[in-house]
């Protein structure tokens, strides 16, 4: 290729806009060469450059800037966690897309020097009746199972949701939680010049080249497969153990995983953060394919690779560890005082770029515009659904969005690591024990597409509070948040508005909860053809369990326990927007989304935590999708107990979704102390029924339903759909 004439076309072909390319030329004062054009195309992709999101992301209340992953503290421990999306790769190659999604987020946590101890996944697919969606669903779950199980990190919680908006663009968001002593954390910032960059891990191949720019465009519908990386869980497992050993060596100064835009972004970001520059010797990169071009080595997203910055002289110690775990190790560069990036291949200089120019992708600010749909949907009145509640009840129970996800999580090793105290499906959050202490970590991941579609601001606030309620219901105090923003094309005004509103909503809720956003991920361009997904922010939240021996699950425990609704005790019919029953039974999405009243909500959390702490309750469950009737049904099914009570008289009361509600069961001998606590906390409550033996059946006000029938609906729905 002719270097001076061809670079413009090359830049455009690689996804840079003409304006961006002109900007690059202005900054450099010259035309970039071919190699440099490749670097800019990757570093300035939306995925690496956060062009459309960085000004808004600054609104989030953070507690740590620009690290591989953020953390919260529990005693002397740092609980490191982060969520990341692998939506586009999973659409094209479901197994590898999901598998490498896990690999990447595990390495982000690992790079901090933390041992990965739990995985959570938030998955969204199209309608389960659609064979393509089913195929993607099966492949993604299989990929998580294949990779996650093998690396020995338990997959302990998650959510799976089906809606046709995700048909060709599934959402695969994976969150990893790790643990380290806070004093032993490693950071990614290079602090001094003349330190060595060490390549560590698997060899570099051509897989995943342009993965970053691939993630930053809509799927073409043609063959996008070469952009998907391939994972090797055996290397990852070795990399985990090896990295934890390497980071203990005092001469190892900084680390980062080679994620999006591989070697390029890891090296440039490490140096840039330390106000330094660097040199790379690309002939030293371990490769597994012949004749790889230097730019391919820079952009390759081959998996299972880390970049360390080390004190010269520690190479031997690191090499020994690499050999022990069958990994490659090579000194490939050094930091420099001058803030430039220089790359060489066999001493030939390939580039000399100011890091300032390379790393700082332009900040694109598009003024948001409130779309019409927002007003139109908001004004729609609740549908008049005349179906009998009993019918709606069974439709909901067997709907894949409510039915048991056992088919999914039984394929995941959720117990490896020997510390999963609350396993999937038994409570609103999972709990991992911090061994050697009485403490635990509660974790959850949650989103609600229809709700954030109808009202991105209130909907986003709601999912943050919903995640917090998940943690509270097991007896944990919410401590920190990671967010995965899944949105459409950020060049569209409507999407900009959704994104802006959502960020504002998450920010305000996190401030009110005092849970910092420790890190996260933005995924744009989630659309295929003309169909955009629901704007879907996903919230991962981590909380502290003060006493691991005193945690709560949702299953009904003993017949004759009293059942209370705590929190908002009267349904607000004007705020049922996004309720699942309206969509399923009335084919309706619209209306006003409920709003959280902060002081009431925080008081509710305190009340629930108090009754758990003082052993007043036997079961706690937060009321969400499907409303009170479904929440009670889940408690009955899990506990293999019956229920009799009266929760309302109409569909809105049975199935309507409002915020700020919990169901609590109390043994009759604790009734008085429960009532006293509620009045002391000034919290609203209402008695709604009693736990009964399973043989009695389930009756919450619309007639008795047989428990066996309910279990069949609940447990058989997804396996049946998958066997069809």
């Amino acid at each position, binding site marked *: 290729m002719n270097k001076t004439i061809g670079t413009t076309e090359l830049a455009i072909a690689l996804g840079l806009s003409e304006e961006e390319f002109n900007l690059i030329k202005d900054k450099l004062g010259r035309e970039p060469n071919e190699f440099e054009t490749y670097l800019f195309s990757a570093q300035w992709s939306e995925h690496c450059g956060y062009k459309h999101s960085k000004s808004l992301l600054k609104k989030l209340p953070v507690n740590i800037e620009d690290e591989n992953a953020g953390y919260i503290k529990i005693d002397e421990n740092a609980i490191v966690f982060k969520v990341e999306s692998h939506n586009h790769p999973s659409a094209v190659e479901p197994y590898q897309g999901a598998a490498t999604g896990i690999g990447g987020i595990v390495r982000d946590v690992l790079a901090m020097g933390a041992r990965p101890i739990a995985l959570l996944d938030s998955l969204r697919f199209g309608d389960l009746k659609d064979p393509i969606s089913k195929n993607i669903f099966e492949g993604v779950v299989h990929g998580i199972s294949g990779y996650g199980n093998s690396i020995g990190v338990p997959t302990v919680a998650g959510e799976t949701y089906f809606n046709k908006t995700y048909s060709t663009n599934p959402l695969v968001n994976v969150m990893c939680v790790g643990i380290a002593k806070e004093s032993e954390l490693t950071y990614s910032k290079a602090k001094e010049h003349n330190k060595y960059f060490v390549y560590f891990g698997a060899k570099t191949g051509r897989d995943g080249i342009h993965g970053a720019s691939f993630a930053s465009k809509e799927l073409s519908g043609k063959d996008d497969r070469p952009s998907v990386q391939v994972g090797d869980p055996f290397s990852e*497992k070795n990399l985990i153990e090896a990295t934890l050993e390497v980071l203990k060596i005092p001469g190892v100064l900084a680390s980062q995983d080679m994620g999006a835009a591989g070697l390029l972004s890891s090296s440039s970001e490490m140096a840039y953060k330390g106000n330094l520059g660097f040199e790379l010797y690309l002939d030293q990169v371990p490769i597994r394919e012949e004749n790889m071009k230097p730019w391919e080595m820079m952009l390759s997203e081959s998996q299972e690779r880390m970049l360390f910055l080390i004190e010269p002289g520690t190479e031997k110690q690191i090499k020994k560890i690499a050999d022990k775990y069958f990994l490659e190790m090579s000194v490939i560069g050094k930091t420099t005082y001058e803030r430039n990036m220089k790359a060489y291949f066999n001493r030939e200089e390939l580039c000399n770029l100011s890091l300032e120019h390379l790393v700082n992708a332009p900040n694109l600010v598009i003024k948001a515009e409130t779309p019409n749909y927002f007003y139109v949907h908001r004004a729609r009145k609740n549908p008049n659904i005349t179906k009998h509640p009993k019918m709606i009840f069974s439709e909901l129970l067997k709907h894949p969005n409510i039915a048991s996800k056992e088919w999914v999580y039984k394929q995941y090793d959720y117990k490896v690591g020997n510390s999963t105290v609350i396993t999937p499906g038994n409570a609103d959050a999972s709990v991992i024990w911090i061994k050697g202490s009485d403490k635990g970590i509660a974790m959850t991941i949650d989103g609600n597409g229809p709700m954030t579609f109808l009202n991105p601001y209130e909907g986003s606030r709601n999912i943050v509070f919903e995640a917090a309620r998940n943690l509270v219901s097991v007896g944990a105090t919410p401590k920190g948040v990671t967010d995965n923003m899944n949105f459409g094309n950020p060049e569209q005004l409507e999407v900009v508005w959704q994104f802006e509103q959502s960020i504002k909503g998450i920010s305000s809720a996190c401030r009110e909860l005092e849970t910092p956003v420790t890190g996260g991920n933005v995924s744009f361009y989630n659309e295929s053809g003309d169909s955009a997904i629901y704007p879907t922010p996903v919230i991962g939240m981590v909380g502290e369990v003060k006493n691991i021996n005193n945690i709560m699950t949702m299953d009904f425990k003993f017949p004759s326990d009293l059942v209370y609704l705590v929190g908002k005790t009267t349904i607000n019919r004007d705020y049922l927007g996004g309720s699942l029953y309206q969509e399923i039974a009335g084919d309706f999405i619209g209306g006003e989304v409920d709003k959280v009243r902060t002081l009431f909500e925080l008081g509710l959390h305190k009340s629930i935590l108090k009754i758990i702490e003082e052993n007043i309750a036997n079961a706690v469950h937060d009321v969400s999708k499907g409303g009170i009737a479904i929440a009670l049904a889940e408690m009955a099914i899990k506990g293999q107990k019956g229920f009799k009570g009266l929760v309302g008289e109409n569909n809105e009361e049975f199935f309507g979704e409002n915020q700020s509600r919990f169901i609590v069961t109390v043994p009759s001998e604790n009734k008085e102390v429960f009532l006293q606590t509620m009045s002391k906390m000034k919290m609203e409550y209402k008695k709604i029924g009693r736990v009964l033996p399973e043989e009695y059946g389930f009756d919450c006000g619309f007639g008795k339903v047989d428990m066996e029938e309910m279990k069949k609906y609940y447990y058989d729905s997804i396996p049946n759909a998958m066997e069809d």
Partner: protein
Amino acid sequence: MPKIKAGVIVFPGSNCDRDAGFALEKIGFDYDYIWHDFEKVLDYDFLFLPGGFSYGDYLRAGALAKFSPVMKNVEKFIENERGLVLGVCNGFQILTESGILKGALSQNEKMKFICDDVDVEIKNRKSPFTKYIEKETLEIPIAHMDGNFKIEEKDYKELKNNDQIVFEYKDNPNGSYKNIAGIMNDKKNVLGMMPHPERNAVKLLGNGDGASILLSIRRFLENE
């Protein structure tokens, strides 16, 4: 009395090694981790081959681990009746692949990984691994892709006649022949089982049933 000395064999790709260490400590063993390239005599009373995906399990589960240097010494340890050996999950697969135990472990009948808690019945109550267990049925977690035990009929009869079948599933999760969940060698100093006793060794992580197996091993080694 000095503590019983246990060695947890760690292959690259093992991922239940630290879980085994945790459980052994809780049950009162002294323990070391032994890396797969260990070539000296195994001076231990008890060896634990943990679960995981040794060498990635890319050929067949457990197929590559049998070539590791440490396995030669494990074989000598067994031959010389130096102590007891327990292989769990991938450890069981390694034991069948290396011919120490009969049979083979193939992919689960439904072709999917299964993580669950299962009930296993103790079929041999005299073995060193079960002698001191009072319960007749234990609830123990499983987590495997290849746990479907297969064996030739004549070998099965031999196992049966010689009381080498130690555990059977109550509700067969993976298609194993005759519900077999765990077997011994003919010397009865090696037990291989798919369920993970180390994952249910303390009450917080289950009902504690897994502890009874490790406790039985400890008491046997202390007393006999």
